[in-house]
């Protein structure tokens, strides 16, 4: 497995863990309140900080198991994979944004709009790494 594929798996794990933690809290607060929880900015900051710290801890470990490949810049195939995965994941984010807007037009719930778009952002990040793995394995 290449360094970039290992990195993608690591990022999927980190993002999934952070996302699960974030939405577990949001769902618990929403259930207790009986309506969609308002945006909780400290929780959003905690989500971002967790991802940064986990990446700082995990990436050197992944790099250490990949030899000098870890220091090499992306070659032409990898650039193509990164671009294509980024492009495809943009559709996931767009879909979530449109779904959120439609939901808002019916429910007029701005809090729910925030959570739907934020979930779309999380999922599109995970999808980007997932697409990278797909293209590394199946060809681009």
């Amino acid at each position: 497995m290449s360094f970039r594929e290992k990195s993608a798996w690591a990022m999927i794990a980190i993002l999934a863990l952070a996302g699960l933690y974030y939405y577990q809290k949001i769902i618990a607060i929403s259930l207790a309140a009986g309506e969609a929880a308002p945006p909780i900015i400290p929780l959003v900051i905690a989500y971002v900080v967790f991802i940064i710290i986990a990446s700082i801890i995990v990436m050197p470990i992944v790099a250490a198991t990949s030899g000098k490949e870890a220091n090499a810049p992306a070659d032409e195939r990898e650039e193509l994979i990164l671009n294509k995965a980024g492009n495809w994941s943009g559709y996931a984010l767009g879909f979530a944004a449109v779904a959120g807007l439609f939901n808002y037009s019916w429910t007029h719930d701005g809090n729910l709009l925030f959570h739907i778009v934020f979930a779309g952002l999380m999922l599109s990040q995970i999808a980007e790494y997932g697409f990278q793995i797909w293209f590394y394995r199946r060809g681009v």
Partner: protein
Amino acid sequence: MAKRPPITNRVKELRAEHGDMSQAALAEAIGVTRQTVIAIEQGRYSPSLESAFRISRVFGVGLEDVFGWEGEETETAS
């Protein structure tokens, strides 16, 4: 699965003919990763024109001695 490019190649064969050159050595010579050389050999990736020229120069043969169009004979290196 991604559509396979209709380009054939003799990279693996040419490596064997050149003293069993390793995939890593070829990758370093043309400036790509070993995984990219593997993908080219397996027909999962068509290299850029620049990399195709680099590969043919490493083996000292013409471009069409390395790459061909599916269904057409690839010229053999003289």
